[in-house]
């Protein structure tokens, strides 16, 4: 028996990084939103490394922030280290990475959510979806509460039929010994969803006081850190260093001696693990010629002695884990506080989703995060905010917002998932983006803040600041182009700067195209009348300096967008289109692409099939138009 727990516009199941963004976005867009989670102490929990950002992932955090999401603001409040990576490379791949105070991160996020109007937090285990007339209508919990809702967002992470594995030991569990969600998984199967089994893992945690840091290398944060959120201008957070050490030959020997007890190799693990996050036993076996592997020791927070041992993800038995830890320089006498483990879980086959993240099978049901086959907090949060936005828009009777591959890593991520699916936990890498140079850390606001503003997640005040920045940058670029310089005016300065003299008259913009000439030089010759902050100067510099490469990519984007704009009607019957190859027919039917652009990215659909589809659509549109 169940009782009525109330009616909502949006119910979010799960309070991890996807769930938090989804719930906040929906509530901020004015929807009555409920977030249910198995354990309210686990809101925004980081079950693996206490770190956010890095290449592609950090870009996603910037994008979430540019859209009006929370992750960037939250980590800016709670970081214990910030580092800008890749500063020696091009601006597109500069990537911010933070170490989080993982407890503070959780508490700060929970507090934000608790204070958000329209948002209710409730502890409970959802076991079943309510379906009415083929549309999701709510959820029922283990305690018998029925929450009715127009839309439901599943963000169950690794909890669905979660199973922890360590050596010979296995038991049903979510991450960090939380209760797994078993019945919901069964319910999804009953509703006809196709699920797969994935695996991931985490390393042991150790006690700080038992580490001999003198045998490791210090990895400090940046002295002048930059932040994730466009709203954060300064911070008084103290930074803590990380520490670098390496595995030893003894480590590798211990692992090799215990492979018969490694679930990876004994067949206990059935789920598919990610290649980019291999366990230490996997690394030692696959790269046996490598004599040592990097180990980073990362603090989990200011008020804890627990250290995360990055690089040592493992599902070996506990005794072997301890032996391995103690074979590493600096950890000879280390005390293990928590052991590492592998976890298997059910995930949705993501090709069952529309690009809006709504399921095709059950209208009103959205899924986001690790349930969609991804891994990583940032990937989860990026999907979370999109699912929240699109559930809210569905409630409001509006068209979904779909980012394309040229607009953001979030667009790349979701398009990859729903178009190609994934056969291992999916991690974003910058190489997955065709237009990497356009998807920069610095320009996330230029790409996405207008969208965030349109959908109501960016405040008027922030939008005004954004448009002000944008127009100042544009005016400055124009000014540099218009400012002519003569040889006698600049050659002396150029010589002092180590740059070749100019022969004829030129302008400042042309000078800045030289690889060695920076904005600061041009600024000295001819300062701007307007006030420009560092962010704006950086923008001017990048836009001018890399204009050639940017232009190359923009031309491709133009073609991409033309293809994305050619929409495919939902009622298309691919079996009726004669001339399509059989494989294309099957794949197109299964994926149901929303545009020609998406169709062209499905593997097995050839350019000839796309041509035929275009001809068919033209025919279809003309016939439809003729019918009026």
């Amino acid at each position: 028996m169940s009782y009525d727990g109330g009616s909502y516009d949006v119910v979010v199941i799960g309070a991890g990084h996807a769930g938090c963004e989804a719930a906040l976005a929906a509530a901020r867009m004015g929807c009555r939103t409920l977030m249910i989670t198995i354990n309210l102490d686990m809101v925004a929990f980081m079950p693996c490394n206490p770190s956010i950002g890095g290449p592609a992932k950090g870009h996603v955090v910037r994008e979430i922030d540019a859209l009006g999401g929370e992750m960037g603001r939250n980590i800016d409040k709670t970081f214990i280290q910030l580092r800008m990576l890749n500063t020696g490379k091009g601006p597109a791949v500069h990537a911010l990475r933070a170490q989080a105070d993982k407890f503070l991160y959780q508490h700060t996020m929970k507090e934000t959510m608790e204070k958000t109007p329209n948002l209710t937090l409730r502890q409970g285990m959802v076991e079943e979806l309510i379906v009415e007339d083929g549309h999701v209508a709510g959820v029922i919990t283990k305690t018998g509460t029925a929450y009715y809702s127009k839309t439901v967002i599943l963000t169950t992470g690794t909890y669905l039929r979660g199973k922890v594995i360590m050596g010979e030991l296995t038991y049903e569990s979510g991450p960090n010994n939380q209760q797994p969600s078993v019945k919901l998984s069964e319910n999804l199967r009953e509703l006809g969803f196709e699920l797969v089994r994935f695996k991931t893992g985490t390393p042991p945690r150790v006690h700080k006081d038992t580490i001999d840091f003198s045998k490791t290398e210090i990895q400090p944060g940046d002295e002048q850190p930059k932040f994730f959120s466009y709203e954060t201008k300064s911070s008084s957070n103290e930074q803590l260093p990380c520490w670098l050490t390496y595995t030893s030959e003894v480590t590798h020997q211990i692992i090799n001696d215990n492979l018969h007890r490694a679930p990876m190799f004994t067949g206990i693990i059935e789920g598919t693990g990610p290649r980019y996050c291999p366990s230490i036993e996997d690394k030692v076996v696959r790269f046996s010629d490598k004599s040592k592997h990097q180990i980073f020791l990362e603090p989990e927070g200011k008020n804890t002695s627990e250290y995360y041992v990055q690089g040592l993800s493992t599902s070996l038995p506990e005794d072997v884990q301890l032996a391995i830890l103690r074979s590493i320089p600096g950890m000879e006498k280390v005390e293990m506080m928590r052991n590492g483990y592998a976890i298997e879980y059910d995930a949705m086959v993501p090709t069952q989703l529309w690009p809006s993240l709504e399921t095709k099978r059950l209208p009103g049901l959205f899924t986001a995060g690790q349930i969609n086959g991804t891994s990583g907090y940032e990937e989860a949060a990026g999907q979370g905010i999109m699912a929240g936005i699109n559930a809210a828009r569905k409630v409001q009777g509006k068209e979904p917002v779909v980012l394309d591959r040229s607009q953001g890593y979030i667009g790349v991520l979701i398009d990859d998932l729903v178009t190609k699916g994934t056969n291992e936990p999916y991690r974003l890498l910058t190489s997955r983006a065709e237009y990497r140079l356009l998807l920069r850390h610095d320009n996330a606001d230029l790409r996405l803040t207008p969208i965030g503003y349109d959908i109501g997640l960016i405040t008027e005040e922030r939008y005004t600041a954004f448009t002000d920045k944008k127009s100042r940058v544009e005016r400055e670029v124009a000014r540099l182009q218009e400012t002519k310089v003569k040889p006698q005016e600049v050659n002396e300065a150029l010589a002092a700067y180590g740059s070749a003299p100019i022969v004829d008259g030129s302008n400042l913009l042309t000078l800045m195209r030289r690889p060695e000439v920076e904005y600061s030089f041009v600024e000295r010759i001819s300062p701007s009348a307007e006030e420009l902050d560092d962010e704006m100067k950086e923008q001017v510099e990048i836009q001018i300096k890399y204009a050639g490469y940017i232009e190359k990519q923009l031309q491709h984007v133009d073609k991409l967008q033309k293809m994305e704009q050619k929409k495919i009607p939902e009622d298309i019957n691919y079996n009726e289109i004669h001339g399509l190859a059989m494989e294309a027919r099957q794949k197109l039917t299964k994926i149901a692409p929303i545009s020609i652009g998406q169709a062209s990215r499905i593997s097995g659909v050839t350019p000839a099939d796309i041509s035929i589809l275009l001809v068919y659509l033209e025919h279809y549109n003309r016939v439809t138009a003729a019918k009026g």
Partner: protein
Amino acid sequence: MLSDTIAAVSTALGEGGIAIIRVSGPQAVRETAKLFRGRIPLTEAESHTVHYGHIIQPETGERMEEVLVTVMKAPRSFTTEDVVEISAHGGVISVRRVMDLLLQQDIRLAEPGEFTKRAFLNGRIDLSQAEAVIDLIRSKSDRAFSVALKQVSGSLSQRIGALRHTLIETMAHIEVNIDYPEHDVESLTAEFIKEKSREVMEGIDKLLKTAGEGKILREGITTAIVGRPNVGKSSLLNALARDNKAIVTDIPGTTRDVIEEYVTINNIPLKLLDTAGIRETMDIVEKIGVERSKAAFSEADLILLVLNASEELHEDELALMEQIHGRQALVIMNKMDLPSRLDKGQLLSYFNEESIVPMSVLEEEGLDKLEEAISELFFGGKLEAGDLTYVSNVRHIALLKKARKSLQDAYEAADMLIPIDMIQIDVRLAWEQLGEIIGDTAADSLLDQIFSQFCLGK
């Protein structure tokens, strides 16, 4: 997709006196104009006008082909886009030359049936024709696919594959540097990228060199049989072809036009051209034949000079030998069955011993020696043994050149110390362009490469 500019030959290849190459798309006029020299620049041409001029090599201004160019501006054209039609002399070589130049501009080779597809999508073709258009695309694509499969067989595929492997290893290295900045992988230097780009560019250059041989394999080595009248040229052709298509008489000058014959000698296809005897003549009909002979002579890959060993060298023959000097040629001393009156020593100042083949075409003696000499000339030493990679397709050549250009850009960028993630744009482009040749552009393989080449992860 619909915004780019495409080109294709719209007449059957190798047949007819005129070949028409059609260019369609927004850049059709601008891009073709770069290759055209006529009375006015094409960009100033009115719609639906015809212009006489030449297709030129844009870098050097060298005239490549004499052409008539028709400009039809949107929407009054078959595709409703800007269309330029280039009428060139028929024949594979001139068409290839023009296409080759076009595809090096911002123009790509049209997909099968693409002109018709565009015409339909732009509303130029009646709705009732939709199905026919689809059939056309399907059948042309399938045919193109099977042809492509045949062309991309074996060694070409392997050679391209090896070049792409070098590139993808380099790309994986670049990507790891970008995506795993804290990992202890060797950081990538500009020198490394330059070295790898150069290595692949050299590989492409080798392939492009064999492009000439690729043409040979598809169409045959163009072999001109030259000599004074009545030295036995047609008999030689017949002997080689073992049939009687060319007219053979004892009256000088009966072979009035260029006779073509295709034969295969030791697996080398030859396109034999029997030319009218080269000498000045007043006979108008024969004069045309002689003119054409000279043309055939000048475009031949191989020249077979037939001499009558029973006569002394004629001054015409000395003049011919002067012309042939420096080209790939074999000298056939025919009529060895008759008493010899030819001074072989005179020949040796023009040709080496190996390229002089004594024969009696009448008695069919020495034919095997000739065949041996031909195959040795083309494969012995001239090519790396067992390394017969042929690039025959215009599309392949265009893609190879584009890939080379991309690598050149990458090389120069590395030289200027441009950041690696930008250099990667061009390296990746080259990798994709090479992949298009062998029909493999799957982006996923880069990830596979990264994770098999490097030990990564937290």
